[in-house]
């Protein structure tokens, strides 16, 4: 079988769920070979083995962490030259897409971003993308070079397939050009204890209609074990950090359930959430465009509806 490279997405060896999804998808296409950049490969090994990595290629050159993504792309290109994979799968986040972009140029290969599904086809992987704010679904494939595909969170349900991969250290050489932009300061984001927005099964989002008080949004989210999101209006007003914005210029999410409270449903917001499986809205205005999308809507004041609903959910769950 051919090798499929999977770039491991992790925080100091703690493997993200998206990597389990990528490994699951990679198994449809060939033998998954995990590429691990940074510290913590031994911590990551059990998770990589659980989802079927046949081998782990570890790159630990410290320079890989200091200079943004150009060196990582360079390293991955060197791995690809050695392994000659039949496809390369990378998570669709800002860093992943930038690595993929550079890799596509280096390998003179086609790139597909934001795949929501990948299947094996006759001439290589066939991807599914949701485009134009979710109004169209397209199937695409790469016709030249090594297919490079960035895959969105939740594109597959992780399926375990135990292996015991060997770890192979790989030495990379990093050019001076790749070292020209540097991170001079980094403040880690505080953990909220809630699920990651792009990975969550349920999201409760608040907009301008919260009037700046996200308390009812957070409480309702917590009763459901949900992540919290926000509209750009809420973010621009400084009510919630930008990292939680849902929409065209925020996160695109596709959870099982999306609850929009005090959000009108502008096209740029819809672009980020309208592929959610089930949609609920709470809005004072019966004419709000968000109601065109909903499976269930409440015309009412979120400050009244949400606290009562939170109480009821908590009661039923206990």
């Amino acid at each position, binding site marked *: 079988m051919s090798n499929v490279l999977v770039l491991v997405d992790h925080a100091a060896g703690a493997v993200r769920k998206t990597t389990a999804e990528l490994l699951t998808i990679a198994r449809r296409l060939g033998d998954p070979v995990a590429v691990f950049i940074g510290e913590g490969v031994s911590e990551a090994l059990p998770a990589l083995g659980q989802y079927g990595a046949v081998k782990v290629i570890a790159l630990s050159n410290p320079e890989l962490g200091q200079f943004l993504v150009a060196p990582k792309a360079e390293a991955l290109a060197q791995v690809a030259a050695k392994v000659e994979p039949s496809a390369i799968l990378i998570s669709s986040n800002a860093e992943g897409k930038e690595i993929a*972009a550079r890799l*596509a140029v280096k390998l003179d290969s086609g790139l597909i971003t934001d795949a929501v599904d990948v299947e094996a086809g006759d001439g290589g992987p066939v991807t599914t993308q949701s485009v134009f704010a979710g109004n*169209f679904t397209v199937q695409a494939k790469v016709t030249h070079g090594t297919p490079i595909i960035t895959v969105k969170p939740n594109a597959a349900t992780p399926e375990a397939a135990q292996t015991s991969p060997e770890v192979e250290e790989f030495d990379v050489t990093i050019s001076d050009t790749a070292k020209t932009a540097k991170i001079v300061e980094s403040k880690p984001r505080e953990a909220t204890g809630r699920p990651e927005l792009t990975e969550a099964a349920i999201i409760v989002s608040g907009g301008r209609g919260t009037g700046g008080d996200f308390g009812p949004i957070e409480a309702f989210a917590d009763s459901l074990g949900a992540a919290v999101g926000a509209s*750009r209006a809420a973010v621009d007003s400084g009510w919630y950090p930008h990292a939680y914005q849902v929409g*065209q210029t925020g996160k695109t999410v596709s959870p099982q359930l999306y609850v929009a409270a005090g959000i009108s449903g502008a096209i740029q917001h819809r672009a980020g959430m309208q592929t959610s499986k089930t949609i609920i809205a709470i809005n004072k205005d019966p004419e709000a465009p968000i109601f065109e999308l*909903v499976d*269930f809507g409440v015309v009412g004041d979120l400050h009244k509806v949400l606290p009562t609903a939170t109480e009821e959910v908590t009661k039923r769950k206990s």
Partner: protein
Amino acid sequence: MKIVVCAKFVPDATADRRFRSEDNTVDRAGVDGLLSELDEYAVETALTVKEAGGSEDGEVTVLTVGPEQAADAVKKGLQMGADAGVHVLDDAIHGSDAVATSLILAKALAKLEADLVVFGMGSTDGGMGVVPAMVSERLGLPAVTLGSEVTVEGQTVRIRRDGDTASETIEGTLPLVLSVSDQANEPRYPSFKGIMAAKKKPVETWSLADLELTADQVGGSSAWTEVVEVTARPARTAGTIVTDDDGSGAAELVEFLSTNKFL
């Protein structure tokens, strides 16, 4: 300092957007289009950097690759205050993928000898957000991407960006490729004076030959990706909507959650 803004012409997201049935490419000619909204932030950044420099030799050029109507994207940039425009126009470009587009842009940028190249964070149609990194790769220039705060002092460009896991400050030295997010600024509206002045500003139209590129290096023939099928999303069926005038809204909401197994 020579600043070039890469600005894309895209189908209007609030109007009809569709694919051409013959080749599954985006219909750009038969629909309303405009300067990609997110590139307005890039134009604004370029203008602010130029104005902050206060130097007489600062110049902002808007560069677009696209069909005939894409001249409108250049025009909008000029109306906002850019000094000059370049439109790369050639029938062979239709159907280009991101890799091919980045090749055309890189060739044009090399010809323009840009010190600072400013991109938007992503187009509002393809929205891949990959072209800035591809161009940086081709030009061998550093890239600092997704800036939500940008300052240029002398040769040093500094940006702040809020990522998924951290808020970072990144530095690079000119010449450099930059992309900015919609958090970066508030794009200005063209003034009446700006609209009038734009009519007199120089716009060059370049063909592939002007960039020493051939038709087989771009367009559908060398797009390394192919769309094999396009399906319109079925319209959502109307859901249940209740009105909370007697305080029953919460109970009905929770009942819906329970029936649909979200509890």
